[in-house]
């Protein structure tokens, strides 16, 4: 009895139940494994680094969905989708593809050759990374220690899994490494359900949903299904009336119900082009609410050419991020309210992705050396801070532009580098049309340490330009500016504003109370609207006496306003 075989129940709960049914209930379906954290079963997204970001479960929990939204006109999210579909085919899952022809499936990436899988960090023909070897030898066990004494998660990498369970289907790994230049060769004829979008129908989503429902109902118990939906609501695929809430929201609501109905069989991955459906609309927010996980992909606006032309930049070739990834919502963890806390919860982390021929890697992103720092830049040869800031700045600019509808200029300064040596890097400026004449905004990036690594704030400063305490007209105009700023705050979830400084240069002090009242009233409005807002805003009125300013002007000329504000605050 001591050597009783596992996985066989002792007493069958119901006498008549066939043993095969019991066995299938206890053995895991191919391509799935149980989460190290909870009792849920997970499956791989086909991208190892993405698996690692999904709340510490080491994969996508069965019965949940991921919505990947992408800025711009690129299709990086599509690559993730291809890996997801290819992984499903290799694991023998039933893959449902919506709106894509057979060609899309034929062009799925194939498995990378084994030698690349082993040393996936290194390019072919190179020595394996010395640093990686060193790390393995010396510090392997310290990697388990998370920051701040928090208990790290069990190692769920490929190696750990296959070495621990040698008898469990070792020839099929949990997550494959794919090569975009290869074509997928499925081990057995793949079961693919092509669902076309009936553009002529008045309810195309309903047809899609009923198709999947039927397939799920008719499929054998224990089969695993994947739903792949590229470019949700893209006008190239969907008729225009699909974008109305009663169609698309009802579809996602139904899909959510279906996922809950088959909590051990179905997962879904969808992509959404944000250029058509911006995130600050209620429709997209509702779609995100109905998805279990939400990722936002922001590609950098330009691939800098020099990196591709220069052959010497080994490091650049290895680790050149192509954009930022933001995790907005995680399956399970978000519904439980954990937020970004907890090991493995990647909400709020600064992540960047690198798409190369053989892999899509998402890794922690740290700000590279600043543009002005020539030497450090040469050494690093990587993406520069400017790339990042300009990417972010362009996004902010378009957000500001779309929200206020007004032309504005935004300058982003790296605060870190405006240091004691009194040099100021060139701000990254973007410009849309004429500058607002009376007010301009100066943005400034700051980074916090300790509990909030990599949090970024955009401080907006509004400057009122007049010499004398104003007439009624001037006050009215200023009220208009404050109102515009207030609208911006309300409308722009992208801007994480923490502080607004109304800085009145050359302002005589006796006008201060009036302006303060004005600011307070705006604050009251913001407070009133601000129930449940994602941000609170501190208002601060700084009044400068003219002579101080005159004294300072000479010195400050090299600084630009943002720097000056910082210095002043420190004084």
């Amino acid at each position, binding site marked *: 009895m001591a050597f009783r075989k596992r996985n066989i129940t002792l007493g069958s709960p119901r006498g008549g139940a066939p043993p095969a049914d019991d066995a299938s209930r206890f053995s895991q379906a191919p391509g799935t494994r149980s989460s190290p954290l909870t009792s849920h079963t997970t499956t791989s997204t086909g991208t190892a680094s993405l698996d690692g970001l999904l709340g510490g479960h080491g994969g996508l929990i069965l019965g949940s969905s991921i919505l990947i939204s992408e800025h711009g006109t690129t299709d990086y999210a599509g690559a993730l989708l291809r890996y997801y579909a290819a992984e499903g085919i290799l694991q023998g899952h039933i893959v449902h593809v919506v709106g894509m022809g057979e060609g899309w499936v034929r062009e799925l990436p194939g498995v990378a050759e084994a030698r690349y899988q082993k040393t996936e960090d290194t390019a072919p023909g190179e020595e394996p990374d010395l640093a990686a070897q060193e790390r393995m030898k010396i510090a392997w066990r310290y990697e388990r220690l998370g920051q701040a004494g928090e208990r790290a998660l069990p190692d769920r990498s490929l190696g750990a899994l296959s070495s621990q369970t040698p008898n469990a289907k070792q020839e099929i790994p949990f997550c494959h490494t794919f090569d975009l230049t290869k074509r997928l060769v499925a081990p057995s004829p793949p079961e693919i359900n092509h669902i076309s979008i009936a553009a002529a129908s008045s309810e195309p989503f309903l047809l899609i949903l009923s198709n999947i429902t039927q397939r799920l109902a008719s499929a054998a118990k224990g089969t695993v299904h994947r739903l792949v939906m590229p470019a949700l609501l893209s006008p190239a695929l969907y008729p225009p009336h699909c974008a109305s809430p009663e169609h698309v929201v009802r579809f996602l609501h139904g899909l959510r119900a279906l996922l809950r109905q088959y909590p051990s069989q179905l997962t879904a991955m969808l992509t959404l082009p944000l250029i058509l459906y911006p995130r600050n609309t209620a429709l997209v927010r509702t779609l995100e609410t109905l998805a279990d996980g939400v990722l936002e992909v922001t590609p950098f606006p330009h691939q800098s050419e020099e990196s591709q032309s220069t052959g010497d930049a080994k490091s650049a070739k290895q680790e050149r991020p192509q954009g930022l990834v933001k995790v907005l919502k995680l399956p399970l963890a978000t519904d439980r309210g954990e937020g970004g806390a907890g090991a493995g919860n990647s909400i709020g982390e600064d992540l960047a992705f690198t798409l190369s021929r053989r892999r899509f890697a998402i890794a922690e992103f740290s700000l590279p050396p600043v543009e002005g720092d020539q030497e450090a830049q040469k050494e690093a040869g990587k993406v520069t801070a400017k790339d990042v800031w300009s990417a972010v700045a362009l996004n902010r600019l378009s957000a500001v532009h779309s929200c206020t509808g007004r032309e504005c200029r935004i300058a982003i300064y790296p605060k870190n580098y405006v240091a004691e040596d009194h040099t100021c890097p060139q701000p990254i400026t973007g410009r849309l049309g004429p500058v607002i004449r009376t007010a301009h905004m100066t943005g400034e990036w700051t980074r916090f340490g300790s509990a909030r690594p990599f949090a970024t704030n955009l401080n907006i400063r509004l400057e009122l330009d007049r010499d004398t305490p104003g007439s009624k007209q001037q006050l009215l105009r200023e009220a208009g500016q404050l109102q515009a700023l207030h609208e911006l705050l309300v409308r722009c979830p992208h801007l994480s504003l923490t502080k607004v400084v109304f800085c009145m240069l050359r302002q005589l002090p006796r006008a201060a109370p009036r302006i303060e009242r004005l600011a307070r009233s705006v604050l009251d*409005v913001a407070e009133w609207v601000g129930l449940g807002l994602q941000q609170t805003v501190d208002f601060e009125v700084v009044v400068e006496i003219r002579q101080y300013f005159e004294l300072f002007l000479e010195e400050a000329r090299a600084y630009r306003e943002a720097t000056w504000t910082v210095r002043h605050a420190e004084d």
Partner: protein
Amino acid sequence: MSASHRNRTPALFLPYLAVPPADTLTLLTSTLSCTCNWLTARFIGAALQSDDFPGSVVLVSWLHDTSFWRGEIQRATGIDAFRSSSNFTFLDCLSDAPTPPQSSVLAETQKRIFQAIGSASADRKVLLILDTPTLLFSLAPETISSDLNRMLLALRDHERMHSTILALPSDLPYVSAATPNADHVPTPLETAHAGFTMQQVHLARLVLGCRELDTGAARDVSGVLRITKGGGWDDGGDDGNGEQQLAEELKEGQWRYLIGRDGSVKIVE
């Protein structure tokens, strides 16, 4: 209230999470990455465990199914509401949502909720909890804020209703239509959301809002809970110390909280 419950919820929050007084509305708001399900689960647990409240609980959810709420309530309060207590009714509007061919989704929904209230054992008052009813703006075509508000008033007016708790998402896009902006014409969905949310804020006794840290997510903070008095707050005025003491207990404030993997909540100083 059991010891396990007390351990899982900070003592400071307990007065806010007790069963609300009769005929009141409590509003819970959430954002995309900061959900308020943990508050909902604690309200349910408090109602089921309370000696002062002999009524039953009806939970209507448009976003989560049975297994989620069973797990959440168990994690929050240690009781299996679905099994142990007969005074808990769950109406699953996610898996079994009325579809448009039926005469009116809204009317059908209302009918089902009334049925659920009726099915709770007789002569008991009912604490009604609605989780994300604003999805009806999309699920029931051409619903506007006053339609949903009317439905809610009809529900609250039911003779056996004790009080109502409403959980709504309140991300910026949902409320921004409440402020005029000449440059952006809000979509009907945004108008409906903003209108409904503002109406409920004015009717609510307490508003408990969960949101992210202003500076982004952190490793040791799950979110910020902000508790304010809504337009429906009754100062009580002259009837003695009890009210004053209550007002003292229910001070407005804002706390950072951390939700652990085990479902326990801590206040982060």
